[in-house]
């Protein structure tokens, strides 16, 4: 917490204890602060992107308690007592998550802008449905947009990762 931060004498601060990529965090936020801004600017994790800013595109997808939310339209204090996962927290000890590996191997990204959100959403999908049909996958991922790939390789990547994850389980 930065003491250099100027405070209005009547500003309201909410203490937020939460887990970020497996680690405990304690911060204070004002009610109006958005999760996207706190994660990017204060916590320095810039994998999550501001794109449409109206919850439509999915580039700001973060997982809160394992479930996808639009960080652009989530008030930061809402993560108190919860666990937050960003793309930076997916790899363990430098080892890529099967989804990340699959996206590389199957060409699931081009410019990479939608990719952090895409992978996190896919993780939430596979946590809920380890063996999704293509229709189930498309329905779940419907809110994650990509301008580069045309989606085919994304679907392939996710299905490949799902297969890998099922064989390991």
């Amino acid at each position: 917490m930065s003491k250099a931060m100027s405070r209005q004498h009547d500003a309201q601060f909410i203490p937020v204890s939460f887990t970020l990529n497996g680690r405990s965090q304690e911060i204070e936020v004002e009610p109006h602060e958005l999760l996207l801004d706190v994660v990017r600017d204060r916590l320095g994790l810039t994998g999550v992107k501001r794109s449409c800013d109206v919850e439509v595109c999915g580039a700001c997808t973060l997982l809160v308690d394992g479930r996808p939310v639009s960080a652009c339209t989530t008030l930061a204090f809402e993560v108190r007592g919860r666990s937050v996962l960003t793309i930076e927290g997916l790899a363990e000890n430098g080892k890529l998550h099967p989804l990340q590996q699959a996206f590389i191997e199957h060409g699931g990204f081009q410019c990479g802008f939608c990719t952090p959100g895409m992978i996190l959403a896919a993780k939430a999908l596979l946590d809920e449905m380890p063996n999704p049909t293509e229709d189930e996958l498309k329905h779940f991922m419907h809110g994650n947009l990509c301008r580069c790939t045309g989606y085919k390789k994304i679907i392939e990547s996710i299905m490949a990762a799902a297969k890998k994850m099922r064989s390991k389980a």
Partner: protein
Amino acid sequence: MLRRFRLEEPESVAEVSELLGRFGDSAKIYAGGTELLLAMKEGLVRYERLINVKGVKGLSDVVIDNGTIRIGALCTHRQVETSSALQQKLPALVKLEQNVANVRVRQVGTIGGNLCFAEPHADPGTLLMALGAKMVAEKSSFKREIAAEEFFVDAFETSLEADEVLTEIRIPTPETNSRSAYLKFGYLERPSVGVALALTVNARSISDTKIAVGCAGPAPRRVVEAEALLDGKSTQEAMQNLPAAAVIAGRAAEANSDLHGSQEYKEHIVGVLLKRAFQSLVS
């Protein structure tokens, strides 16, 4: 960036109501925030205070209570779409909820918030109207039920009083032979036309017909005049009256021409969806 506001975190409906009464227009109820925060980000609305209702217990349950299905206003779309009880009793509602916006909005957006914001291009209100739903509005020690037909007044306007809180949606449990369907059409982010149809198929005729149209106009509307052309008729007769009912339903939508389509186009689509809904329920 949002403008600064104060967060209030009441723990009872009475407290929420009291806060609304005290602060009037400068305060607003905040649940999932999926509509409210967008409007605030756009600068279209400003509030000095947001009243976080998620701290009030007992508003996010799904209860099957003898002849009534009760859905708490704070149930998220996701809760409704994954409720096995609702899948059994109201599969059309579950299907509708599965298709609201996207998975992130469904995760935090509440059905109550959706109804109260009364954005014209929304789904739940239309089907709830055809299901005979009643909205439970509470303030301090006073509770009342508002029929869906009276709940939706105009675009972004419900009949809730300034200090009233929507706490529950009550739907009469459908009869055995009762069926319902909700069809929607749109290719923009929000739906452009929505039609709900509920009816009971008996041996010789159709009964308890309810038709509601939404998204095309400012608010969901019941179309009693079109219902009369189908209700009490044999399936065959109703089929013959369907084109006429479709035209009436189209007009009842109060469609206006905008980016979603011209008035004529929307009215036409209302008719198409009504016919398809009917065919899906009686075949």
